[in-house]
């Protein structure tokens, strides 16, 4: 084959690849574009008309912050957003601390029952939340809390505490810790560091990739949880975004512009978190998926 036609064939193949990529990218991006663009369309009638054509994805016509303002002032959005931030933030942060501590004990410390505990934690990974949701509901109904009221329903702690301990997070930390070179911790032992000091000053600073992975995975999972809030939260005071959105979505008359504004603001944090952390997350998440 002559050099020219070979290069030509390569160029054509590359072009074809870009076309395919372009079409797929459109498939994956357009719904999101649609959401963002519709959120800015303050004329509801126009929004509905635009859906019939490509104008659905174009920021045309009457645009403005009107929908966003409506949602922020006249719906429980702001409260729900704050609730989500609080609940997810606390759960993820405490989760990283507590799960990595357990993983460190399993990875580096010798104690009676270690092997059994490790096996149990790994076995717990496959227990789906749906299988325990109902008995968990019963359980939290009976648990005491400060302030003498019985049961945990309709509160912050009911949405946080059951989710701090997470078997898969423990597993991810464990895999990472056992791969760290042991002599760093031995050197610290020789320097007189306590186990806690070693964990806090040596191991965790070196664990940024796995911390990022666990943070992103847990953030995504907790931010979007609807099942548990549906079961334990009433009203708006403690509702997080997915629940608030379900309520708003079920209200009539439905203003799609506002619904889209609500949705856009609700999902912006997860998109942002992913974009910021994607370097670390992509690399270590998939390697641990393979090991699983």
């Amino acid at each position: 084959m002559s050099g020219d036609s070979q290069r030509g064939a390569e160029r054509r193949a590359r072009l074809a690849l870009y076309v395919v990529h372009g079409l797929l990218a459109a498939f994956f991006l357009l719904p999101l574009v649609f959401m963002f663009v519709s959120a800015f369309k303050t004329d509801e009638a126009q929004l509905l008309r635009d859906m019939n054509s490509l104008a659905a994805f174009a920021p045309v016509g009457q645009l403005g912050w009107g929908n966003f303002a409506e949602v922020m002032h006249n719906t429980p959005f702001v409260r729900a957003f704050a609730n989500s931030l609080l609940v997810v933030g606390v759960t993820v942060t405490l989760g990283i601390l507590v799960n990595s501590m357990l993983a460190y004990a399993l990875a580096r410390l010798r104690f009676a029952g270690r092997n059994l505990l490790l096996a149990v934690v790994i076995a717990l990974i496959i227990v789906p939340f749906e299988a325990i949701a109902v008995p968990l509901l019963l359980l939290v109904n009976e648990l005491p809390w400060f302030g003498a009221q019985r049961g945990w329903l309709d509160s912050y702690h009911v949405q946080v505490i059951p989710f701090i301990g997470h078997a898969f997070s423990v597993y991810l930390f464990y895999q990472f810790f056992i791969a760290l070179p042991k002599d760093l911790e031995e050197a610290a032992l020789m320097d007189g560091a306590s186990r806690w000091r070693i964990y806090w000053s040596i191991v965790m600073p070196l664990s940024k990739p796995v911390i990022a992975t666990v943070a992103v995975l847990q953030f995504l999972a907790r931010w979007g949880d609807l099942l548990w809030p549906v079961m334990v939260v009433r009203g708006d005071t403690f509702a997080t975004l997915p629940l608030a959105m379900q309520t708003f979505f079920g209200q009539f008359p439905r203003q799609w512009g506002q619904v889209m504004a609500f949705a856009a603001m609700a999902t912006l944090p997860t998109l942002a978190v992913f974009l910021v952390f994607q370097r670390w997350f992509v690399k270590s998440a998939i390697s641990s998926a393979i090991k699983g």
Partner: protein
Amino acid sequence: MSSLQMTSSSAAGAPPATVRRQRPRGDGATAWLFAAPATALLGIFLVLPFLMAVVLSFTNKRLISAEELGTDFVGWRNYARLLQDDAFWVALKNNFVFVAIVAPLQSAFALLLAVLVNQPLAGSRFFRTVYFMPVATTMAVVAVIWSLMYAPDGGVVNRFVGFVSFGLIAPQDWLRDPALVLYAVMVLSIWQGVGFQMLVFLAGLQAIPVDLYEAAKLDGATPWQQFRHITVPMLKNTTIFVLITTTIYAFQLYTQVQIIASSGTAAPVDSFRTVVMLMVHEGFGSGKIGHAAALSVLFFVLVLAISLIQRLLLKEERAVA
């Protein structure tokens, strides 16, 4: 002569050697301090409810326990009732139809995306991010967006379908038509989920040593032959993993169908209600805890069976390799 002795002589007057036997020192107390918080949390909020589910499934417990009703041990009655409950079978059927279509479809799609993204092309990283964006989008939001896109008159989906079929396919009410709603949910679920499985396949692809392809190229294999004879066999374990996890996620289907059900403009709930949705409505909506617990246990057994199948299949592969 000192060099003939095994040791150098110790100074006169050194204390006699005492033979001490020691047990290996463990890290006991420290270890439990590290392990206690997570162990306690997992124990109380995961293990305990799980055991409760098993026990409760054999009772007739109710959410609001009135003194007069009490709770009795009822043996297998909940399970029997479940197996005779039409709603249960319909929900199970919905799940199975969903799995049967989504698992292979989403997995194949994920493989395609992974292969595309793996090509040495400028901008692959960008496309990889784009394909993953839906995964980073909250599922409730995804359901809402697609609800609008599925609008019966002048919806984006109808317009697209009409365009692609040259007007042959009329606009449908995707979410209100009981025959179509499940498929509509499938599309949006695949849209949201395929990015993650793509990453898993990508890792599997990148683990295949490049020399295999180079050797095949020297032997004159075409790209398609390389794919069939190198890529596919080397991806066996990854494929099994992806299929299994997609299957498990498909059985856990809840959020998107719940959002659509609560939208008020959807098909009769039977046509798309899933097992998990049923469980929530039963146990929580009607307060029949015993019933819902039986459902939970069945659900767990199902997931466990699927996971075990995966381990078996993977172990065989590893033994052969």
